[in-house]
C-alpha cells in the first residue's frame, strides 16, 4: 500500500500523445531593404543574401529589388517563395494595365494596388515586408512602407526586413532629422548625400545582422528611369 503511493519519477501519470509534426508553410529568408526619397529622386537599397531560415546561406546573389515600371520598384524581404509569387502577380497585372491603358501605372496607384493584393490574402498572408519606391507623376520621390497584410503609409524614408531595427533609427536621425532644432544647411539630403547614407546604412546593418550581407543592390530612381548598381558587403 505504501509502495503504491511512493513516486520515484516525475513522469506524467497519463501517456500524452506526441503532438504531430505539422508542415510549416512559412520560411523567413531574411534580408534588409531600405529607401530614401528626395524632391526629385529616390534611392533604394537591398542586400542580396538569402538565408535558409537558420544560420545557413542558400545563395549570396538573390536580388530583393524588382523593377515594376520605369518610375517604380518594389523591394521585398521576408519569405522568398512568397516574394516571387507576389512579384509575378504584380508584374502580370501591371503589364495588363499597360496594354489596356497605353501607359504604365503611376507609382501611387501601384502603392494602393500592392496593399489590395496583400490584403486579398489576409487569412493566408504573403510573408513579405515591402517597400514601394519611385517617383510620382510630378517626378517627386516617394516611398510606401507596408506590413504583411497591406497596412501602408507614404513616408519620406523607411526600411524593412531583418535589419529594420538597426536602420530605421539611423534614418530617423540622419534623414528625418527628428527633434533637431539646429540643422546645418538644408534639411533635405541631396541625391549624393542620400546615396552615401544608404550605402553606410546597409553596411552597418551587415555588421550586426547575420541575415544581411554579401552584396547590395543600390537603385536610383528619377525622371530618367531606374538605375541599378552593385555594392559589396561583408561575406561572413
Amino acid at each position, binding site marked *: 500500500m505504501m509502495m503504491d503511493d511512493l513516486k520515484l519519477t516525475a513522469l506524467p501519470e497519463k501517456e500524452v*500523445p506526441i503532438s*504531430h*509534426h*505539422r*508542415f510549416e*508553410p*512559412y*520560411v523567413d*529568408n531574411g534580408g534588409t531593404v531600405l529607401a530614401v526619397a528626395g524632391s526629385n529622386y529616390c534611392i533604394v537599397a537591398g542586400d542580396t543574401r*538569402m538565408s*535558409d531560415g537558420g544560420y*545557413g546561406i*542558400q*545563395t*549570396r*546573389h*538573390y536580388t530583393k529589388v524588382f523593377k515594376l515600371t520605369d518610375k517604380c520598384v518594389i523591394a521585398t524581404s521576408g*519569405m*522568398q*517563395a512568397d516574394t*516571387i*509569387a507576389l512579384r509575378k502577380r504584380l508584374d502580370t497585372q501591371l503589364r495588363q494595365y499597360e496594354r489596356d491603358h497605353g501607359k504604365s501605372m503611376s507609382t501611387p496607384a501601384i502603392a494602393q494596388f500592392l496593399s489590395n493584393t496583400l490584403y*486579398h490574402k489576409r487569412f*493566408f498572408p504573403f510573408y513579405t515586408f515591402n517597400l514601394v519606391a519611385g517617383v510620382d507623376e510630378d517626378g517627386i520621390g516617394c516611398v510606401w512602407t507596408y506590413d504583411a497584410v497591406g497596412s501602408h503609409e507614404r513616408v519620406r524614408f523607411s526600411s524593412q526586413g531583418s535589419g529594420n531595427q538597426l536602420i530605421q533609427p539611423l534614418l530617423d536621425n540622419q534623414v528625418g532629422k527628428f527633434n533637431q532644432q539646429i540643422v546645418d544647411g538644408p534639411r533635405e539630403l541631396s541625391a549624393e548625400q542620400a546615396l552615401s547614407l544608404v550605402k553606410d546604412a546597409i553596411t552597418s546593418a551587415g555588421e550586426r545582422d547575420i541575415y544581411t550581407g554579401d552584396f547590395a543592390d543600390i537603385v536610383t530612381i528619377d525622371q530618367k528611369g531606374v538605375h541599378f548598381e552593385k555594392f559589396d558587403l561583408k561575406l561572413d
Partner: protein
Amino acid sequence: MSSEHFKYPVFGQVDYFKYNNVASQLASHTPSPSHSQELGAKKRTVDPIVTGTSVIAIKYNGGVVMGADTLLSYGSLARFNNIERMKKFGKSTIIGAGGEYSDFQNLSQVLDDLVVDDGCTDDGTTLSTTEIWNYIARVMYNRRNKGDPYWNSLVVIGHDNNKSFLGKVDLVGTCYQDNFIASGYGSHIALPLLRKAYKEDMTLDEAKTLIQDCLRVLFYRDARSSRFIQLSIANADGLVITEQIALDTDKWDSGDSAKKKKNQDGRKKKNNYRNDSTQVILEYGHNVV
C-alpha cells in the same frame, strides 16, 4: 488526358490546410466513425517516409555536373541501395531529387506529361531548362499553398543554347540559381567545401573530382548516405547520367593511422617504438626505458 495533372484549383478557392478535415482530426485523438470515414486514407505528405539525401551540383567551363548517391532510406534503415535519384526531362534537363522519393516519382509523371504535351504541339520548340525549373517552382509553391507539399528539394541542371543552367527548388517553393548548389545535408557539409574549392572555368574532370570529394566527405558524416553514387553531366554534347560509381573511401592513410598501416603487427611495432630511445627522449625529454 495527360494535362489533367497540371490543373490546380482556382487560387482563393482552396481549403489550404484541409481545415474541414484536419480541424476535426485535431479536435479529438480518437475520431468518431463519421470522422474517420471523412478522413479516409492519409492523402498528404505529412512527413517523408522513403527518403534520399543530398544532391550537389556545380557549373564548369562547358556545362554542369551533378552528383548524388543511390541510397533510399526508410528512417534509419538503408532500404533501397541502387535507386537513381537523377532523371532526364526533355532534351536538355536533368533533375536530382532529395526527400520523399514517391513525391519525386509523382512529380516526374507530371513533368513527363508536360514534356510530351509540349512535343505534341509540334511547333519546333522544346522546353528549356529554365522553363522546366520555373514550372517546378510554381508546382511546388502551389502544393505548399494547399498544405500538401511535394516533400523534396530538387536540383535542376541543364545546358541549352550554349548556356549552362543550375537551379534549385524546395518544398515551400523557394527557388534560385547559383554557380554551385547543395541540398539536404550537403547544404551543411558540402556547401562550405564548394565555396572554398569552387573556381570559375573549371574543367569537366576538375568538376567531377570536386563533386566526388564532396560526396565522399558527406559519406563520412551523413549517416543516411552511401558510398555508391552517380554523376550527371549536362553540356553541349547532351545529357549523361553515369553508371553507379563506388567511391574509394580508403583515404584514411594520413597522420598516425598511416604509421599503423605500414606496420600491421601491433606488438612488433609497439616494441620498435619503445626501443627507439631517440623517439622516447623526444617525447618525454628523458629516457624512460
